[in-house]
């Protein structure tokens, strides 16, 4: 297990020192680093650990059920599955406070469930149902839950990077001690707005954390074919943004990395770029052919050696936090929940055509407070 940090010591006690220091030359952490002994993880109660395990399982079972629903023809369009990456979303969200916010790209189901959205509203959205989180108007790529500090779900690669910056800007302007976790893929690091955003984040001292979930492929193009100058997180250095690289199959490592960046954001309002190396088991979207750019063996090898759920399960068994029986019951319950969410979604009504024109303008949805006049829709469904 290789981890690269630009800060040699990831002990949280040093977080405040790191916060004010400029980017440094990377150094390698000992392969044997046991992240479970870091304070952020050592202080965890057994119940919390079980909750994280359960959340990862729930995400996976939800994704697997949605995949079958897609294959059964219940879901159309794209379906970008998060299977294999679960420890990243769950680990990141697990160290957030109530003042911290999340925004992500189109592979958003894992983050949505991690922040507490329920499977029913997510599955219903995939099926385009009225009971979906976006009333069937957003789809797989556009889940939102502002009441859970979750700001989407964005379909254009890298397009959310300035939005995350704006969330951090608003937090700072309003004097809230929160940060914005802006998730993105490795492919998004090659979009221009990301660099414009890094410059502003550093220049204006904004509490934004860019989490690059590097699953190795920008759609079907491997990192070695899409990016010069690795690691990708090092690109933060040009803007004096602290950066580091972590392994995403270890939930404890993800938690420790994010908690350091969150401290930096809270205490000195400085941005971070964290590259979290992970892997997706399924195609870019489920309809995409997998075998044109990677081998079955490669996928199998990762599953065998680095599956984040298996690794965490083994740790919790070792720690005596979980038993096989308990694991089975958590898994069964996750499967049942996913199955029930599909039943809920199937039983839910589609939105009415008369609702097509709702939710476009605040003003047309709030006619009693309307201030403008004139025609705003030019071909009406009503």
């Amino acid at each position, binding site marked *: 297990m290789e981890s690269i940090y630009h800060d040699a010591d990831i002990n949280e006690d040093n977080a405040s020192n790191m916060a004010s220091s400029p980017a440094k030359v990377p150094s390698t952490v000992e392969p044997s680093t046991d992240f479970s002994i870091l304070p952020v993880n050592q202080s965890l109660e057994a119940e919390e650990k079980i909750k994280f395990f359960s959340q990862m399982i729930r995400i996976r079972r939800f994704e697997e059920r949605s995949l079958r629903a897609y294959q059964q023809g219940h879901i159309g369009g794209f379906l970008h599955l998060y299977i294999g990456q679960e420890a990243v979303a769950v680990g990141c969200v697990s160290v957030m406070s109530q003042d911290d916010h999340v925004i992500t790209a189109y592979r958003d189901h894992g983050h949505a469930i991690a922040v507490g959205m329920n499977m029913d509203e997510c599955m219903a959205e995939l099926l385009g149902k009225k009971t979906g989180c976006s009333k069937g108007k957003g789809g797989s790529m556009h889940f939102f839950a502002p009441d859970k500090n979750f700001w989407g779900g964005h379909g254009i690669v890298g397009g959310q990077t300035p939005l995350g910056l704006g969330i951090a800007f608003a937090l700072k*302007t309003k004097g809230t001690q929160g940060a914005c976790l802006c998730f993105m893929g490795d492919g998004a690091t090659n979009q221009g707005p990301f660099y414009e955003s890094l410059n502003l984040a550093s220049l204006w001292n904004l509490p934004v954390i860019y989490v690059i979930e590097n699953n190795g492929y920008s759609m079907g193009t491997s990192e070695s074919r899409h990016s010069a100058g690795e690691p990708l997180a090092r690109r933060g250095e040009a803007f004096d943004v602290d950066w580091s690289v972590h392994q995403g199959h270890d939930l404890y490592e993800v938690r420790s990395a994010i908690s350091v960046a969150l401290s930096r954001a809270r205490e000195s309002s400085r941005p971070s770029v964290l590259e979290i190396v992970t892997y997706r088991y399924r195609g870019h979207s489920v309809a995409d052919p997998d075998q044109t750019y990677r081998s079955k063996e490669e996928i199998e090898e990762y599953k065998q050696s680095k599956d984040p759920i298996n690794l965490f399960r083994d740790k919790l068994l070792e720690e005596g936090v979980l038993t096989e029986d308990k694991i089975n019951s958590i898994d069964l319950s996750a499967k049942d929940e996913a199955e029930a969410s599909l039943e809920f979604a199937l039983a839910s009504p589609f939105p009415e055509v008369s609702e097509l024109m709702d939710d476009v303008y605040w003003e047309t949805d709030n006619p009693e407070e309307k201030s403008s006049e004139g025609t705003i829709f030019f071909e009406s469904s009503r």
Partner: protein
Amino acid sequence: MAEITYREALNQALTEEILRDPNVVLMGEEVAQFKGSYKVSEGLLEQFGPKRIIDTPISEAAFSGLAVGAAMMGMRPVVEFMFWSFCYVAFDQIFNNAASVRYMSGGLVNVPIVFRGPANGGTNVGATHSHTPENFAANTPGLKVICPATPADAKGMMKAAIRDNDPVCVMENTILYNLKGEVPEEEDFIIPLGKARVACEGKDLSIIAHGRSVQVALQVAETLQEKHNVSVEVLDLRSIRPLDLEAILETVKKTNRVLLVEENKPFCGVDAQIAYLIQHHAFDHLDAPVMRVSAIDVPQAYSKALENFQIPNHDRVLAKALELL
């Protein structure tokens, strides 16, 4: 009522709204220390400080998107584009994010934001700095688009735009910045979006225009009255989306002849839609086909000799009007 310039009217609108609502900030290139490339924000940094009047680097995608993100969180940013032409490098942030987030979230997320700046030709700055994207913006459900043509409208509509809970694109005009006119001084002076204005009354021909073309239309109306004894009604649209369809149909029904004038390029320009609406809703009231004068359909020319002809000028509009009569 005081007589002030279009520029001063915008400045007053910004000042009053920044004073009124702590969530309003102005950001863009050179808006603070430099006082605005066209001095629209002169004095604002001194009055409100750098937390409200914010200079940005030349990064339209980042600061437009930042403002959208901040608006999602409840702020009311006013984003200045030095030229609307520069919005093309921020297209995703305006047309995907600002315009669509509300819909894609099923109405959970609002984006109360103003994008503003000049969108006009006629200043010898060539193709990259002379775009008039009001048609693109109005083609995008979720956005509102206004093109104020007078100092009073600049103030009243800018204030309405800032108070609006939806994204509003305010397309100004560098040539109008020095135009003087009477502007009410009351703080609650608001001109609602979507309300057209009869700029001059007439009975023989309607010229419907927006932005600086309104001023050209008024000159042509004067010539037609003086030299041809023709009475022209000029309708200033003011707002493209929402659109005052009622006022359009009213003037068409009154004069039965209509000439549409805009600085937009003709193909899929704003007036293409308006011509459709007129024939659809008032076909029986037309005594002649609807006619248009738009910018000549090539990239904006640099040379004065070419550009002065390219955008709708007095003579081109007059010639087309005479064809209609």
